[in-house]
């Protein structure tokens, strides 16, 4: 059974978001996603300062069998990236909601979080085979 922490938001492409006190959002991939991908061998992170639109591909996670785009769940500017993943991409497998976070982005104004899923809705999505 996938871990789906209740304090996070989710999107259907299997990224999670956490609202930070400074107004930024931390983004990673879900337990379901890391499990489906298998052992990660490489993470390509976005450039800090880049503006991304909601739904824009901005990172790539690569396992021994697949390379998958990571989509920005909301629009914003990339403020920080998790550079420890460059040498230790396996942190995404071992701790996807903690040390395996990918990047943070700061929305230009109030974040449009209306389309985001809560844990219950994301669980329902997985149960439907999504």
């Amino acid at each position: 059974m996938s871990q789906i922490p209740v304090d996070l938001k989710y999107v259907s492409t299997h990224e999670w978001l956490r609202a930070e006190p400074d107004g930024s959002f931390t983004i990673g991939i879900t337990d379901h996603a890391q499990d489906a991908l298998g052992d990660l061998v490489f993470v390509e992170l976005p450039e800090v300062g880049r503006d991304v639109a909601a739904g824009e591909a901005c990172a790539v996670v690569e396992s021994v069998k697949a390379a998958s785009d990571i989509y920005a769940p909301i629009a914003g500017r990339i403020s920080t990236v998790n550079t420890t993943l460059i040498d230790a991409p396996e942190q995404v497998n071992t701790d996807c909601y903690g040390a395996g976070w990918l990047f943070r982005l700061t929305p230009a104004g109030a974040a449009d979080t209306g389309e985001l899923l809560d844990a219950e809705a994301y669980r329902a999505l997985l149960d439907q085979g999504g």
Partner: protein
Amino acid sequence: MPFIPHTPEDVQAMLDAIGVTDVTELFDEIPPALRWSRVEGVPPGASEMAIGRLMRERAAKDGNDLCFLGAGAYEHHIPAAVWEITTRGEFYSAYTPYQAEASQGTLQLIYEYQSMMTALMDMDVSNASLYDGASALAEAALMALRLHRGDVRRIWMPAAVHPHYRETVRTIVEGQGIALIEVPYDPVTGQTQAMALDDLPDAAALVIPQPNFFGRLEEVDALTDAARARGALVIAVVNPLAMAVLKPPGAWGAAGGADIACGDGQPLGIPLAGGGPYYGFLCCRSEHVRQMPGRIVGRTVDRDGKTGYTLTLQPREQHIRRAKATSNICTNQGLMVTASTIHMALLGAEGLARAALSSHARATALAGQLAALPGVSLRFAGPFFHEFVLTLPRPVAPVLASLADVGILGGYDLSAAYPELGHALLVCATETRTAADLARYTATLSSILGDDA
């Protein structure tokens, strides 16, 4: 066993499974105007006997000319063993293998090829080869754009790069909104000038040819440093044989060398054959490997600890990443690479260096003899590898025709690609040209030009 694996029944079963009535429906994304129902100008089939005769007759027309023509493809001695071994049944395929367990020998050969190319280029990684030198340069340009990550969609492309290479790169990159910014050459030295970059808008990468199309050696260190100072990557497009004696791309400039080295592998064991097949090579620094197009063979151990070879770094390729693949050119020239690897193994580093130095010595001798003829001069001052530009006292094309009449391929007429150079002729001599060959060319050219005086 049929060569076409799907019977009509197989095809129908597959169509039924996906709910499509006809194969053509699978192509409905392609506008009808772009779908070709038949290829124009191709005659109907002929029997094996008739084709064999046609080919022999056409081959005979090629004659056995004395060749001083280079311009991107070069005649070198190839030991008889190279193609004897290459055409063994175990090797005789043009493709890289997908099934590692079934093709350890071929994979090991490609691994050896990659090791030799990285040693020759002083780079960290080589792919398993690409289609040819020109498309390898286009792939290198696209790779540099991905690596550069900026918004700059430009490549600095010297005018002294092979005109066909520039055309191929333009064809492949322009549709992706990438502009080629021409870097001029110095009219006195024929070299690409680092200073010229100062007047040009920023670019993601500078292409540096070595030697350049005129045969001239470029100031690779100064060019590399000038590109770096502007935040651009460096793409080396080199003659691989020349790299046996010149400073390799990995050592260019004050810091780190070129980012990507590419070129045509033809000088390494591939005969001149009506323009091909040849193959392209592409090497890079290890930090760039995930943006490298094509296949890479890696060496590993199996669970019993025995050495094994396998295709590696595959998730970026088209069979997994589809439209987002690093490259959609993966078909390589496996058989050419096989020949090249055997050629390099037989010659060794010393043999390659001797072939390169011998070619340089022949070209230098020939340049001296020809430039001493009345009205003939070397167009550019400074060192060259095995090719040089002559200025003739009259138009080049009729002179080449007169040389061809007596069985001499005199060189490449530059007047179409470089009209500003006047009556300019690009001449090549490799280690295959003897002193008697040089004397014959000199005497014949002297006689042809003398008739005119």
